[in-house]
């Protein structure tokens, strides 16, 4: 049976595109109407101005440094933080499966620290360690490790008993059982943990850079702040678009394929 156009995938895409066009039109009308008074074009620039600023961000940038370098710096810190955070989340969650004492302590830590915003922790860290790129990495680790651990721990706990027993029946135990059964059985939770962890890390990174921008390792957050202090509002908006684009690329270019290759392929319902 042929599906009607309204149920088709191209219709879904069309709806999304039309919505974006509508937003752009409203934006443009608002900008041209000078609703924010005399200097309205500075506070609320037109799409052409933002477009031009988007290009300028990369060609001219700030103080001779293009936005590309700022972005690369941010991504570098982010990637390091993500890898460490995810690695630690797996290591500690795995240890929690082996030791009951460790599990108790670690669950308490996850509950406490997951509620603590990274930016709130940053002043303390800076007082102790000083201002250096490592501090931002620390913050990214903090943002990703707790939600990721929560997902992994929940996933391990929810691993169907029958898989665990089938694994033991094949002679698996200890780390073999952990990696052979618990980790794949928790795949849906791990994928949703990655999504939450990545989003937290990305936001945490931008926030930290904005509040404690480090000139020795300038990132996107710092750039956006510099644009604001220099009254370059169009550039500011254009940088927001860069942040959104990076988010979309990670979502559709990395996270969705991971999901498709694992839980969807295996017919395991996503936990999210």
């Amino acid at each position, binding site marked *: 049976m042929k599906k009607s156009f309204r149920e088709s995938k191209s219709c879904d895409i069309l709806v999304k595109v039309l919505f974006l066009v509508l937003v752009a039109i409203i934006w443009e009308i608002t900008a041209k109407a000078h609703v924010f008074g005399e200097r309205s074009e500075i506070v609320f620039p037109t799409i052409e101005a933002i477009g031009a600023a988007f290009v300028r961000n990369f060609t001219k940038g700030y103080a001779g440094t293009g936005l590309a370098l700022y972005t690369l710096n941010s991504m570098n810190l982010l990637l390091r933080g993500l890898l460490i955070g995810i690695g630690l989340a797996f290591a500690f969650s795995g240890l929690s499966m082996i030791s009951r004492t460790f599990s108790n302590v670690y669950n308490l830590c996850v509950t406490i620290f997951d509620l603590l915003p990274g930016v709130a922790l940053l002043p303390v860290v800076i007082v102790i360690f000083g201002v250096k790129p490592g501090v931002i990495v620390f913050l990214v680790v903090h943002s990703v490790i707790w939600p990721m651990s929560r997902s992994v721990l929940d996933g391990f706990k929810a691993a*169907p008993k*029958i*898989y665990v*027993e*089938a694994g*033991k*029946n*094949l*002679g*698996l135990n200890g780390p*073999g059982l952990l990696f*052979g*059964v618990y980790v*794949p*059985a928790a*795949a849906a939770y791990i994928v949703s943990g990655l999504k939450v962890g990545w989003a937290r890390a990305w936001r945490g990174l931008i926030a930290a850079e904005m509040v404690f921008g480090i000139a020795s390792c300038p990132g996107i957050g710092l750039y956006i702040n510099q644009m604001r202090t220099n009254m370059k509002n169009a550039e500011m908006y254009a940088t927001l678009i860069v942040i959104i684009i990076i988010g979309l690329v990670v979502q559709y270019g990395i996270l969705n394929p991971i999901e498709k290759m*694992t839980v969807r*392929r*295996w*017919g*395991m319902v996503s936990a999210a």
Partner: protein
Amino acid sequence: MDEAGPGTAAGDVDAADKPVVLEVSHLTKIFDDSQIPGADGMGNRVIVDLSLQVRKNDFLCILGPSGCGKTTLLRCIGGFENFEGKIRINGIERRTPGTDRIMVFQDYNQLFPWKTVEKNIQYGLKLKGIRDKEELRRLSDHALETVGLSGYQKYYPHQLSGGMKQRVAIAKALALKPEIILMDEPFAALDAITRNTLQQELLRISADQDWDCTIIFITHNIQEAIVLGTRIMVMEKGGTIAVNEKNPIRRPVTPASEGYGAYWNKLHAALYRA
């Protein structure tokens, strides 16, 4: 399906001279009930002092009412429960799970959903130390062919029906060549037609000299027990053995077989006495 096979069944052979594969002696299993309100705190005595022998190529069907301890008995043999007493496989004591006793569960979602049919079968073989890819493929193909699923190697479990998943689970057990296959109502969750087909296939496989199986099969279904078993055991509440004898009905068993009605009635009476 092929119903001609079971003509020369193991049931016709007197197995008393075959070696003892499984020996359960003085098995007692008491579940802690101290957390359950109203319980006497003495523990829930599911199985008390049960002894049992299973010989090579036996197909032992265990019948019993719900809660009589038949699943617990199987889980103890599989090494999934702590217990008092001794369980020996070929004379060697076992207390933990191992590939010499492979369990086929009732739940047909027992295959790893993240592995294809083929990899599900090969995983246990790999863990046993078989590394050669050709050898692994040969073994898994042969097992799949036996259960009538040639061509489904690359399917993921979620793409199969319940009956097909149970076939794969049986293939997985066969491929590992365990000393004994433990089946806990493997067909109970299936529809009647699929169930009949799988009974006939299991009968054929169990009688196949190539596979050389020894099976313990738990069921609620008297007909299933008479059709499949070379030996039949009835358990009563408290885990005592009410009946444990050679199946007197000649294979292939149908409701028209000589003595079927009388034997069915006997088992039915034993089953409902408790």
